[in-house]
């Protein structure tokens, strides 16, 4: 009940409030006129089409990057598998808007690559210009979603299905397009829909790149410049939610058939083959190229954070550590804020995650399915929309026990983080609980433990790996979240690191310290990711034999 109330109050209610504002006249009558007004404005029409275009193109480019990589790892015997896996995580440990700044330094008009190209051959590649630049940054950042999902899906294909096709004469490209890829389609769709949603909703990247003719930046500008009463911001929000939910629903529909593709009992994975020399060269070249491009933002950021002077040169002209010193001096509070907010949010998430997972998997509570949908649907609510909903819903509400306004306290930030990251924690908890054999709980009850005691003494301790993994995932993704943060931060003293980086990056003088703060954020996120992998692996190993017997 508490769980349901939390979700209703902090997820459903704000979204409903946003919808209401988009469909209601000032006098309270229902109307579609706001939408009419939206499509009457050239700027809005353009933003809408731009957003769709950028999201679709980014998904396609990301797929083009990820598909060969996934296919290489699963299909061929070669040593790059580990490299590809690393590749798969590297971009994700950097907030996308930070990546945008760093990529500007490497691939921008006066970035390292173009300067070198210009010097040697007198050419320029304008990858960072305009909307194409946004597509470039977003696809570099989000292709791992497709890579990871597709790899898992390919791994789960029963090798005999492909062998049967070969036995009947299928081979080469036709074998791939007619048998292998269709079988892996659910994984591909899951990854691609996630990329689409993320790109469609992203606020930080286009803002940093100065591309405001997209939906998310327009919503932000409307709310911050015109005000909370402007219906246009709500119309944009509704459009964003509708498209996100449509993309998620499409992928859920495809995923429903996923179980047919998994490896049957006694089956084996796809056969690995040796690469021909020519193909090996091509494979390594492709991986090398992707690796360079993926690593570019990290390198750029690191260089920027250490650079004293860096303009119109391939590399900085002088080096310094003073940016780091300044960051620790000025922004210690921001680092502390991030730890505090994300810590609370992630704790909330795992508590809710365990509760929801338990309710869904272990009880026959009516409406438990709806709980799952609602909790998962928060993936489809863009951060900026949630923030707008909060500002509107909690306008004038004070924090219990004091007269501080809720909208000017940092609690809204924590709540927004918790709600938006709940799906990650929930998935981790569900997976952990699903792998627990029911008999482990039944034997406790058989020996006299009530369900509550069983939960405490058996279920939670056995889920600890999943719970920690969920905590870390929620924590690190909340640490790099910017879109809700930008609207909900009411005073600079309350700002977390992600907002700090954004502020620094606004001015030329601040780019050094901003980069330093970015490097710190990356290190935190990378450590967290690595740590959560370790935890999951260790728990898996610890309980491995126990699960074999089930």
């Amino acid at each position: 009940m508490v769980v349901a109330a939390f979700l209703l109050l902090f997820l459903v209610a704000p979204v409903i409030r946003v919808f209401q504002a988009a469909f209601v006249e000032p006098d309270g009558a229902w109307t579609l006129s706001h939408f009419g007004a939206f499509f009457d404005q050239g700027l809005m029409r353009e933003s809408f089409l731009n957003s769709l275009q950028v999201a679709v193109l980014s998904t396609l480019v990301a797929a083009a990057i990820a598909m060969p990589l996934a296919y290489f790892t699963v299909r061929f015997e070669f040593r790059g598998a580990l490299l590809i896996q690393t590749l798969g995580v590297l971009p994700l440990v950097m907030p996308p808007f930070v990546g945008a700044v760093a990529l500007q330094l490497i691939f921008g008009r006066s970035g390292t690559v173009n300067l070198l190209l210009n010097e040697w051959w007198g050419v320029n590649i304008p990858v960072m210009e305009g909307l194409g630049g946004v597509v470039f940054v977003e696809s570099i950042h989000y292709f791992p979603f497709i890579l990871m999902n597709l790899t898992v899906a390919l791994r789960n294909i029963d090798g005999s299905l492909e062998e049967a096709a070969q036995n009947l004469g299928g081979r080469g490209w036709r074998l791939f397009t007619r048998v292998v890829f269709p079988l892996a389609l659910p994984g591909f769709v899951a990854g691609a829909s996630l990329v689409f949603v993320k790109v469609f909703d992203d606020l930080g990247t286009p803002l940093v790149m100065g591309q405001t003719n997209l939906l998310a930046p327009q919503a932000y500008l409307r709310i911050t410049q015109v005000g909370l009463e402007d219906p246009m911001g709500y119309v944009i929000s509704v459009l964003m939610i509708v498209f996100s939910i449509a993309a998620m629903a499409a992928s859920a529909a495809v995923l429903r058939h996923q179980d047919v593709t998994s490896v049957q009992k006694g089956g084996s994975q796809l056969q690995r083959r040796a690469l021909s020399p020519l193909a090996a060269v091509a494979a390594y070249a492709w991986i090398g190229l992707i690796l360079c491009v993926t690593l570019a933002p990290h390198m750029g950021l690191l260089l920027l954070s250490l650079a004293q002077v860096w303009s119109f040169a391939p590399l900085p002209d002088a080096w310094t550590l003073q940016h780091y010193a300044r960051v620790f001096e000025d922004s210690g509070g921001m680092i502390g804020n991030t730890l505090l907010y994300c810590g609370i949010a992630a704790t909330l998430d795992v508590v809710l995650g365990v509760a929801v997972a338990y309710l869904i998997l272990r009880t026959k509570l009516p409406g438990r399915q709806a709980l799952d949908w609602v909790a998962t649907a928060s993936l489809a609510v863009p951060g900026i929309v949630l923030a707008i909903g909060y500002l509107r819903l909690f306008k004038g509400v004070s924090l219990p026990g004091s007269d501080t306004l809720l909208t000017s306290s940092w609690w809204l930030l924590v709540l927004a983080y918790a709600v938006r990251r709940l799906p990650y924690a929930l998935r981790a908890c569900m997976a952990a609980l699903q792998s627990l054999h029911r008999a482990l709980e039944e034997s406790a009850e058989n020996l006299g433990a009530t369900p509550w005691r069983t939960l405490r003494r058996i279920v939670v301790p056995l889920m600890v790996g999943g719970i920690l993994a969920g905590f870390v995932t929620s924590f690190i993704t909340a640490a790099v979240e910017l879109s809700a943060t930008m609207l909900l931060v009411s005073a600079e003293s309350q700002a977390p690191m992600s907002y700090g980086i954004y502020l620094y990056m606004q001015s030329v003088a601040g780019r050094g310290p901003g980069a330093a703060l970015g490097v710190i954020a990356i290190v935190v996120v990378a450590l967290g990711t690595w740590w959560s992998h370790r935890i999951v692996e260790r728990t898996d190993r610890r309980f491995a034999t126990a699960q074999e017997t089930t």
Partner: protein
Amino acid sequence: MKKVSVQCRGIGLSYGSTEVLKGVDLDIQPGEFFALLGPSGSGKSTLLRLMAGFARHQRGELLIDGVDVSARAPWQRQVGLVFQNYALWPHLSVWDNVAFGLVERREPAAVIRQKVGAALDLVGLADYGQRRPNQLSGGQQQRVALARTLVIEPQVLLLDEPLSNLDKTLRVQMRQELLAMQRRLGLTTIFVTHDQEEAMTTADRMAVLDQGVVQQVGTPRTLYDEPANAFVATFVGTNNLLDVHLQTNAHSSSARIEWPGLGTWPWAGAVPAGAPSRCVLSFRPHAVTLLPTPAPDVPASCIQADAIVQSHEFCGETTRYRLRVGDHGVLADRPHRSGLAPWAPGTRVTMQLDLGQARLLV
């Protein structure tokens, strides 16, 4: 320890429209070692889980020691269940696993120490307390599961396929250990199995279940020698089932059976009540005697017939022949001595069946 009885009175259980148990009646005596035998899907595991409180029956009542416990939650019943996969908690040591039930009962620490030590002693794992369950072999895990259940001194011990996860040698050994322990404790024990050999060698009495209905209850010998119906006849051991005609004479009590196409013979055995004229003759492969040539004279109660060998299977102590007798297939065992060569398929042989070893089933 007080020995208690377990009674099922018309227990019915459905999941949606699927009837899993259809009016099960069982009377399990205090201190009995009782087997529930049946194929998968027969409802035997459901019946066991129901006794432990993990499934709720919609009809009938379940009495333990004469008290209806149907409404009690699992943790309120003193019924120990050993799970098929043992369900040892991987995050707790062997000692903590065994101590769990006592801790839940808020026993004083000293009592817990003493009882857990005794329970581990009982199963021969006194030195293994600090190990983790996944550091133990399958047989040792089973013993820990048993100790964990016995330590709470349950009224009834339930075993769900207790030996199915062990390899063959260990299975025979654990079977004997289980039985010895049950005899020593005198604990009413009910165990579920799909392995008829396991049930026959250990159980005092057993019940055969099929499709949610108890087909027959009795000692292993009764079920083997006097199966109540065709299902029991084929599920417990192997049986030949032949369709025969029963000719009863209303005036005298004499009866004859006709093996279609082969002849008629006097039937001196029991005739099931209300038997129709078409019956099933049931006899074991080892009730048949195989000879190379017909014997000159046979008693009237003995069927002698020509048979053609179709295939054979060497089982060690015997060779099992699949024969064609008239239009019927018959399984027959021939005792093996070393050096005895099998008859090749196609060989004509003679089979003899003593009707005293056969039964008529409806």
